[in-house]
Protein backbone atom coordinates (compact mmCIF):
# COMPACT_ATOMS: atom_id res chain seq x y z
CA UNK A 1 0.00 0.00 0.00
CA UNK A 2 2.96 2.32 -0.66
CA UNK A 3 0.77 4.59 -2.83
CA UNK A 4 -1.01 5.76 0.37
CA UNK A 5 2.20 7.40 1.66
CA UNK A 6 1.66 10.78 -0.08
CA UNK A 7 -1.87 10.82 1.35
CA UNK A 8 -0.49 10.50 4.89
CA UNK A 9 2.06 13.23 4.19
CA UNK A 10 -0.71 15.49 2.88
CA UNK A 11 -2.92 14.87 5.90
CA UNK A 12 0.05 15.47 8.19
CA UNK A 13 0.75 18.86 6.59
CA UNK A 14 -2.91 19.82 6.92
CA UNK A 15 -2.92 18.84 10.60
CA UNK A 16 0.31 20.76 11.21
CA UNK A 17 -1.10 23.91 9.56
CA UNK A 18 -4.26 23.66 11.69
CA UNK A 19 -2.24 23.25 14.91
CA UNK A 20 0.09 26.17 14.10
CA UNK A 21 -2.89 28.28 13.07
CA UNK A 22 -4.63 27.71 16.42
CA UNK A 23 -1.57 29.19 18.16
CA UNK A 24 -1.11 32.20 15.84
CA UNK A 25 -4.70 33.37 15.31
CA UNK A 26 -5.89 35.32 18.37
CA UNK A 27 -8.96 34.29 20.33
CA UNK A 28 -11.91 36.34 19.22
CA UNK A 29 -10.82 36.45 15.60
CA UNK A 30 -13.61 35.57 13.20
CA UNK A 31 -16.68 36.78 11.34
CA UNK A 32 -18.87 39.05 13.43
CA UNK A 33 -22.09 41.10 13.20
CA UNK A 34 -21.66 42.71 9.78
CA UNK A 35 -20.65 39.54 7.97
CA UNK A 36 -17.49 38.39 6.22
CA UNK A 37 -17.10 41.47 4.03
CA UNK A 38 -17.22 44.11 6.79
CA UNK A 39 -16.62 42.36 10.11
CA UNK A 40 -13.90 39.79 9.74
CA UNK A 41 -11.75 40.81 12.68
CA UNK A 42 -10.74 40.30 16.30
CA UNK A 43 -13.78 41.13 18.46
CA UNK A 44 -11.56 42.27 21.37
CA UNK A 45 -10.15 45.16 19.34
CA UNK A 46 -13.44 47.07 19.79
CA UNK A 47 -12.72 47.23 23.54
CA UNK A 48 -9.16 48.38 22.84
CA UNK A 49 -10.54 51.41 21.00
CA UNK A 50 -13.23 52.01 23.63
CA UNK A 51 -10.52 52.17 26.30
CA UNK A 52 -8.39 54.74 24.45
CA UNK A 53 -7.36 57.61 26.73
CA UNK A 54 -9.66 60.65 26.92
CA UNK A 55 -7.59 63.86 26.87
CA UNK A 56 -10.20 66.60 26.40
CA UNK A 57 -12.39 66.76 29.52
CA UNK A 58 -14.81 69.56 28.51
CA UNK A 59 -15.52 72.88 30.19
CA UNK A 60 -17.88 71.41 32.79
CA UNK A 61 -14.86 69.69 34.36
CA UNK A 62 -13.20 73.12 34.87
CA UNK A 63 -16.24 74.60 36.63
CA UNK A 64 -15.70 73.15 40.12
CA UNK A 65 -12.26 74.67 40.72
CA UNK A 66 -12.31 77.70 38.39
CA UNK A 67 -15.82 78.93 39.02
CA UNK A 68 -15.01 82.66 38.71
CA UNK A 69 -13.42 82.38 35.30
CA UNK A 70 -16.03 79.84 34.19
CA UNK A 71 -18.94 82.18 35.05
CA UNK A 72 -17.26 85.23 33.54
CA UNK A 73 -16.48 83.35 30.34
CA UNK A 74 -19.97 81.78 30.15
CA UNK A 75 -21.54 85.26 30.04
CA UNK A 76 -19.13 86.70 27.48
CA UNK A 77 -19.12 86.82 23.68
CA UNK A 78 -16.59 84.00 23.74
CA UNK A 79 -18.94 81.68 25.61
CA UNK A 80 -19.03 79.05 22.87
CA UNK A 81 -15.28 78.58 22.95
CA UNK A 82 -14.17 75.60 25.03
CA UNK A 83 -11.64 76.26 27.82
CA UNK A 84 -9.38 73.61 26.31
CA UNK A 85 -9.29 75.32 22.89
CA UNK A 86 -6.85 77.86 24.36
CA UNK A 87 -5.64 76.12 27.51
CA UNK A 88 -4.94 72.80 25.83
CA UNK A 89 -6.33 69.38 26.73
CA UNK A 90 -6.68 69.13 30.50
CA UNK A 91 -5.90 65.37 30.64
CA UNK A 92 -5.07 64.53 34.30
CA UNK A 93 -5.02 68.20 35.40
CA UNK A 94 -8.26 67.99 37.46
CA UNK A 95 -6.73 65.15 39.53
CA UNK A 96 -3.28 66.70 39.71
CA UNK A 97 -3.73 70.52 39.74
CA UNK A 98 0.01 71.06 40.25
CA UNK A 99 0.63 70.17 36.64
CA UNK A 100 -0.01 73.56 35.04
CA UNK A 101 -1.63 73.67 31.62
CA UNK A 102 0.32 75.57 28.95
CA UNK A 103 -1.84 78.52 27.88
CA UNK A 104 -1.57 79.57 24.24
CA UNK A 105 -1.32 83.39 24.40
CA UNK A 106 -0.06 83.85 20.85
CA UNK A 107 -1.49 86.25 18.27
CA UNK A 108 -1.72 83.24 15.97
CA UNK A 109 -4.37 81.68 18.22
CA UNK A 110 -6.67 84.74 18.09
CA UNK A 111 -6.06 85.25 14.39
CA UNK A 112 -7.57 81.80 13.68
CA UNK A 113 -10.95 83.55 13.85
CA UNK A 114 -10.12 87.26 13.89
CA UNK A 115 -8.34 87.48 10.53
CA UNK A 116 -10.68 89.14 8.09
CA UNK A 117 -11.57 87.26 4.92
CA UNK A 118 -14.19 88.48 2.41
CA UNK A 119 -15.86 85.04 2.31
CA UNK A 120 -19.57 85.90 2.23
CA UNK A 121 -20.68 82.25 2.10
CA UNK A 122 -18.87 81.47 5.36
CA UNK A 123 -19.52 82.42 8.98
CA UNK A 124 -16.01 83.88 8.90
CA UNK A 125 -17.31 87.10 7.34
CA UNK A 126 -19.82 87.53 10.20
CA UNK A 127 -17.34 87.40 13.09
CA UNK A 128 -16.98 90.69 14.92
CA UNK A 129 -13.76 92.12 16.29
CA UNK A 130 -11.65 92.20 13.15
CA UNK A 131 -8.37 94.02 13.35
CA UNK A 132 -5.70 94.77 10.82
CA UNK A 133 -3.45 92.22 12.52
CA UNK A 134 -0.36 93.23 10.54
CA UNK A 135 -0.50 96.85 11.76
CA UNK A 136 -2.46 96.77 15.06
CA UNK A 137 0.14 96.65 17.89
CA UNK A 138 2.36 94.19 16.01
CA UNK A 139 4.52 92.00 18.23
CA UNK A 140 2.29 92.29 21.28
CA UNK A 141 0.12 89.44 22.48
CA UNK A 142 -3.59 90.24 22.02
CA UNK A 143 -4.23 89.25 25.64
CA UNK A 144 -1.97 92.08 26.81
CA UNK A 145 -4.96 94.44 26.37
CA UNK A 146 -7.95 92.24 25.46
CA UNK A 147 -9.35 89.86 28.07
CA UNK A 148 -10.24 86.63 26.25
CA UNK A 149 -12.71 85.69 29.00
CA UNK A 150 -14.57 88.97 28.47
CA UNK A 151 -13.60 90.50 25.14
CA UNK A 152 -16.00 93.50 25.35
CA UNK A 153 -14.16 96.66 24.31
CA UNK A 154 -16.22 98.73 26.81
CA UNK A 155 -14.93 96.61 29.71
CA UNK A 156 -11.31 96.90 28.73
Amino acid at each position, binding site marked *: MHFLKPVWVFLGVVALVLVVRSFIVPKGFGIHE*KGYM*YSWHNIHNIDWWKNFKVN*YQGKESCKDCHEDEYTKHAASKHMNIECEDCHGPSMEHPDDPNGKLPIDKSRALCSRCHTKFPYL*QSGRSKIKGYADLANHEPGDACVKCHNPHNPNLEDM
Partner: protein
Amino acid sequence: MVTRRNVLAKIFKSAASLAVALPLAQVLNPKKAHAQTVEKSKSVRWGFLIDTEKCVGCGMCVKACKLENEVPFEANVSRTWVERYVLTKDGVVHADSPKAARDGFTDAKIDQGEMPPLTIKDDDINKAFFVPKLCNQCENPPCVQVCPVGATYQTPDGIALVDRSWCIGCGYCIMACPYGARFFHPKYHVADKCTFCYHRISKGLKPACVMACPFGARQIGNLKDPNDPVTIAINTERVTVLKEEFGTKPQAYYLHMSKEVK
Protein backbone atom coordinates in the same frame (compact mmCIF):
# COMPACT_ATOMS: atom_id res chain seq x y z
CA MET B 1 -69.38 16.83 28.61
CA VAL B 2 -68.70 20.50 29.02
CA THR B 3 -68.00 21.33 32.59
CA ARG B 4 -66.40 24.38 34.11
CA ARG B 5 -63.53 22.18 35.23
CA ASN B 6 -62.90 20.90 31.65
CA VAL B 7 -63.00 24.33 30.05
CA LEU B 8 -60.63 25.83 32.59
CA ALA B 9 -58.24 22.91 32.18
CA LYS B 10 -58.25 23.31 28.38
CA ILE B 11 -57.58 27.03 28.58
CA PHE B 12 -54.75 26.43 31.01
CA LYS B 13 -53.23 23.70 28.83
CA SER B 14 -53.33 25.72 25.61
CA ALA B 15 -51.82 28.74 27.35
CA ALA B 16 -49.05 26.61 28.79
CA SER B 17 -48.27 24.94 25.46
CA LEU B 18 -48.21 28.34 23.71
CA ALA B 19 -45.80 29.64 26.32
CA VAL B 20 -43.48 26.71 25.62
CA ALA B 21 -43.95 26.70 21.87
CA LEU B 22 -43.13 30.34 21.19
CA PRO B 23 -39.59 30.37 22.60
CA LEU B 24 -39.09 26.91 21.11
CA ALA B 25 -39.94 28.31 17.68
CA GLN B 26 -37.19 30.88 18.18
CA VAL B 27 -34.68 28.18 19.08
CA LEU B 28 -35.67 26.21 16.00
CA ASN B 29 -35.31 29.38 13.94
CA PRO B 30 -31.87 30.57 15.08
CA LYS B 31 -31.62 33.16 12.31
CA LYS B 32 -34.57 35.04 13.74
CA ALA B 33 -33.40 34.64 17.33
CA HIS B 34 -29.93 35.87 16.34
CA ALA B 35 -31.44 38.81 14.45
CA GLN B 36 -33.31 39.83 17.59
CA THR B 37 -30.22 39.83 19.81
CA VAL B 38 -28.15 41.66 17.20
CA GLU B 39 -30.98 44.16 16.74
CA LYS B 40 -30.62 45.15 20.38
CA SER B 41 -26.91 45.88 20.02
CA LYS B 42 -27.63 47.71 16.77
CA SER B 43 -29.92 50.38 18.15
CA VAL B 44 -27.11 52.87 17.53
CA ARG B 45 -25.76 54.04 14.16
CA TRP B 46 -23.44 57.01 14.39
CA GLY B 47 -23.72 59.76 11.80
CA PHE B 48 -22.20 63.19 11.35
CA LEU B 49 -23.72 66.49 10.27
CA ILE B 50 -21.52 69.33 9.03
CA ASP B 51 -22.74 72.85 8.34
CA THR B 52 -20.26 74.41 5.92
CA GLU B 53 -21.78 77.85 6.34
CA LYS B 54 -21.09 77.89 10.08
CA CYS B 55 -17.47 76.83 9.65
CA VAL B 56 -15.07 79.78 9.86
CA GLY B 57 -11.88 77.80 9.22
CA CYS B 58 -10.36 78.29 12.68
CA GLY B 59 -9.02 74.74 12.66
CA MET B 60 -9.71 74.18 16.38
CA CYS B 61 -11.25 70.82 15.42
CA VAL B 62 -8.05 69.66 13.75
CA LYS B 63 -5.92 70.75 16.70
CA ALA B 64 -8.25 69.03 19.19
CA CYS B 65 -8.40 65.85 17.09
CA LYS B 66 -4.63 65.56 16.91
CA LEU B 67 -4.13 66.13 20.64
CA GLU B 68 -7.03 63.88 21.66
CA ASN B 69 -6.13 60.96 19.44
CA GLU B 70 -2.36 61.34 19.79
CA VAL B 71 -1.72 61.83 16.09
CA PRO B 72 1.81 63.37 15.93
CA PHE B 73 1.21 67.12 15.91
CA GLU B 74 4.07 68.12 13.61
CA ALA B 75 3.59 65.32 11.07
CA ASN B 76 1.63 66.34 7.99
CA VAL B 77 -1.13 63.75 8.53
CA SER B 78 -4.50 64.25 10.17
CA ARG B 79 -7.70 62.33 10.86
CA THR B 80 -9.79 65.42 10.12
CA TRP B 81 -9.00 68.48 8.09
CA VAL B 82 -10.60 71.68 6.84
CA GLU B 83 -10.54 72.67 3.17
CA ARG B 84 -10.91 76.21 1.89
CA TYR B 85 -12.65 76.77 -1.44
CA VAL B 86 -12.27 80.08 -3.23
CA LEU B 87 -14.16 80.25 -6.53
CA THR B 88 -13.07 83.11 -8.73
CA LYS B 89 -14.92 84.91 -11.51
CA ASP B 90 -12.77 83.24 -14.19
CA GLY B 91 -14.37 79.90 -13.22
CA VAL B 92 -11.35 78.49 -11.40
CA VAL B 93 -11.76 76.53 -8.14
CA HIS B 94 -8.92 77.27 -5.72
CA ALA B 95 -8.78 74.81 -2.84
CA ASP B 96 -6.20 74.44 -0.09
CA SER B 97 -5.73 72.96 3.36
CA PRO B 98 -2.27 73.94 4.64
CA LYS B 99 -1.15 71.52 7.39
CA ALA B 100 -4.72 70.12 7.32
CA ALA B 101 -5.73 73.54 8.80
CA ARG B 102 -4.17 72.54 12.12
CA ASP B 103 -3.30 76.21 12.73
CA GLY B 104 -6.46 77.55 11.09
CA PHE B 105 -6.67 79.83 8.09
CA THR B 106 -4.89 83.08 8.93
CA ASP B 107 -3.64 84.04 5.48
CA ALA B 108 -5.81 85.06 2.51
CA LYS B 109 -3.26 83.54 0.11
CA ILE B 110 -4.12 80.10 -1.27
CA ASP B 111 -1.36 77.71 -0.18
CA GLN B 112 -1.41 74.37 -2.01
CA GLY B 113 2.14 73.58 -0.99
CA GLU B 114 3.42 72.82 -4.48
CA MET B 115 3.70 76.36 -5.81
CA PRO B 116 4.17 79.75 -4.16
CA PRO B 117 1.04 80.95 -2.27
CA LEU B 118 -1.47 82.54 -4.63
CA THR B 119 -2.93 85.99 -3.95
CA ILE B 120 -6.55 86.45 -5.01
CA LYS B 121 -8.08 89.92 -5.19
CA ASP B 122 -11.24 90.38 -3.09
CA ASP B 123 -13.16 91.59 -6.16
CA ASP B 124 -12.34 88.44 -8.10
CA ILE B 125 -14.09 86.14 -5.64
CA ASN B 126 -17.47 84.69 -6.62
CA LYS B 127 -17.86 82.58 -3.54
CA ALA B 128 -15.62 81.28 -0.79
CA PHE B 129 -16.19 78.96 2.16
CA PHE B 130 -14.65 76.26 4.34
CA VAL B 131 -15.46 72.54 4.33
CA PRO B 132 -14.49 70.36 7.31
CA LYS B 133 -13.77 66.77 6.33
CA LEU B 134 -13.35 63.53 8.21
CA CYS B 135 -14.05 59.84 7.75
CA ASN B 136 -17.58 59.36 6.37
CA GLN B 137 -18.02 56.05 8.26
CA CYS B 138 -19.60 54.61 5.10
CA GLU B 139 -22.28 51.94 5.32
CA ASN B 140 -20.37 50.11 2.54
CA PRO B 141 -16.78 50.98 3.45
CA PRO B 142 -14.44 50.10 0.55
CA CYS B 143 -11.45 50.43 2.89
CA VAL B 144 -12.75 47.51 4.95
CA GLN B 145 -13.53 45.32 1.93
CA VAL B 146 -9.97 45.45 0.61
CA CYS B 147 -8.15 44.59 3.85
CA PRO B 148 -6.43 41.26 3.17
CA VAL B 149 -5.86 40.30 6.83
CA GLY B 150 -9.01 41.39 8.68
CA ALA B 151 -7.29 44.24 10.48
CA THR B 152 -9.92 46.84 9.65
CA TYR B 153 -13.59 46.28 10.26
CA GLN B 154 -16.94 47.91 10.84
CA THR B 155 -18.42 47.93 14.34
CA PRO B 156 -22.16 47.14 14.82
CA ASP B 157 -22.76 50.88 15.34
CA GLY B 158 -21.18 51.71 12.00
CA ILE B 159 -17.63 52.85 12.80
CA ALA B 160 -14.70 51.60 10.72
CA LEU B 161 -11.75 50.84 13.01
CA VAL B 162 -8.19 49.58 12.50
CA ASP B 163 -6.68 46.82 14.66
CA ARG B 164 -3.16 48.16 15.23
CA SER B 165 -1.85 44.81 16.41
CA TRP B 166 -3.04 43.07 13.24
CA CYS B 167 -2.49 45.63 10.45
CA ILE B 168 0.43 44.69 8.19
CA GLY B 169 0.71 48.18 6.69
CA CYS B 170 0.07 47.16 3.08
CA GLY B 171 -1.80 50.41 2.37
CA TYR B 172 -4.65 48.92 0.31
CA CYS B 173 -7.23 50.66 2.50
CA ILE B 174 -5.48 54.00 2.10
CA MET B 175 -5.73 53.61 -1.68
CA ALA B 176 -9.33 52.34 -1.53
CA CYS B 177 -10.83 55.26 0.40
CA PRO B 178 -12.33 57.67 -2.16
CA TYR B 179 -12.26 60.46 0.43
CA GLY B 180 -8.58 60.30 1.34
CA ALA B 181 -9.50 59.82 4.98
CA ARG B 182 -6.80 57.23 5.77
CA PHE B 183 -3.05 57.62 6.21
CA PHE B 184 -0.04 55.82 7.65
CA HIS B 185 0.45 56.53 11.33
CA PRO B 186 4.01 57.89 11.53
CA LYS B 187 4.63 56.30 14.93
CA TYR B 188 2.90 52.91 14.72
CA HIS B 189 3.41 52.35 10.95
CA VAL B 190 -0.15 51.08 10.49
CA ALA B 191 -3.17 52.55 8.75
CA ASP B 192 -4.92 55.20 10.82
CA LYS B 193 -8.22 57.03 10.45
CA CYS B 194 -10.94 59.01 12.16
CA THR B 195 -12.94 56.87 14.62
CA PHE B 196 -15.58 59.55 15.41
CA CYS B 197 -13.60 59.42 18.73
CA TYR B 198 -14.99 55.96 19.45
CA HIS B 199 -13.57 56.05 22.99
CA ARG B 200 -15.51 59.26 23.68
CA ILE B 201 -18.85 58.51 22.00
CA SER B 202 -19.06 55.11 23.71
CA LYS B 203 -18.77 56.94 27.04
CA GLY B 204 -21.46 59.48 26.15
CA LEU B 205 -18.99 62.27 25.36
CA LYS B 206 -18.87 64.25 22.13
CA PRO B 207 -15.97 63.70 19.72
CA ALA B 208 -13.06 66.08 20.34
CA CYS B 209 -13.66 68.00 17.10
CA VAL B 210 -17.36 68.49 17.87
CA MET B 211 -16.51 69.73 21.37
CA ALA B 212 -13.77 72.06 20.16
CA CYS B 213 -15.88 73.73 17.45
CA PRO B 214 -17.15 77.05 18.85
CA PHE B 215 -19.63 77.52 16.00
CA GLY B 216 -21.61 74.27 16.06
CA ALA B 217 -20.47 73.45 12.54
CA ARG B 218 -19.89 69.82 13.51
CA GLN B 219 -22.52 67.59 15.11
CA ILE B 220 -22.74 63.88 15.82
CA GLY B 221 -25.90 61.87 16.34
CA ASN B 222 -27.51 58.46 16.43
CA LEU B 223 -29.19 57.94 13.07
CA LYS B 224 -31.37 55.15 14.50
CA ASP B 225 -32.95 57.52 17.02
CA PRO B 226 -35.72 59.46 15.24
CA ASN B 227 -35.68 62.11 18.00
CA ASP B 228 -31.96 62.84 17.74
CA PRO B 229 -31.48 66.46 16.55
CA VAL B 230 -28.96 65.30 13.93
CA THR B 231 -31.37 62.66 12.58
CA ILE B 232 -34.16 65.23 12.46
CA ALA B 233 -31.92 67.68 10.60
CA ILE B 234 -30.81 65.02 8.09
CA ASN B 235 -34.43 63.96 7.52
CA THR B 236 -35.92 67.43 7.21
CA GLU B 237 -33.18 69.71 5.86
CA ARG B 238 -31.56 69.79 2.44
CA VAL B 239 -28.42 67.76 3.00
CA THR B 240 -25.99 66.02 0.71
CA VAL B 241 -23.10 63.57 0.99
CA LEU B 242 -19.72 63.45 -0.73
CA LYS B 243 -19.16 61.30 -3.85
CA GLU B 244 -22.52 59.54 -3.70
CA GLU B 245 -21.84 57.96 -7.09
CA PHE B 246 -19.23 55.64 -5.53
CA GLY B 247 -22.01 53.71 -3.77
CA THR B 248 -20.20 53.79 -0.42
CA LYS B 249 -23.27 55.19 1.42
CA PRO B 250 -21.30 57.81 3.40
CA GLN B 251 -22.81 58.81 6.77
CA ALA B 252 -21.33 62.30 7.06
CA TYR B 253 -24.01 64.69 5.86
CA TYR B 254 -23.35 68.24 4.68
CA LEU B 255 -25.55 71.30 4.95
CA HIS B 256 -25.05 74.31 2.62
CA MET B 257 -22.80 72.33 0.31
CA SER B 258 -21.61 73.44 -3.11
CA LYS B 259 -21.07 71.23 -6.17
CA GLU B 260 -17.43 72.27 -6.52
CA VAL B 261 -16.55 70.36 -3.35
CA LYS B 262 -15.15 66.94 -4.15
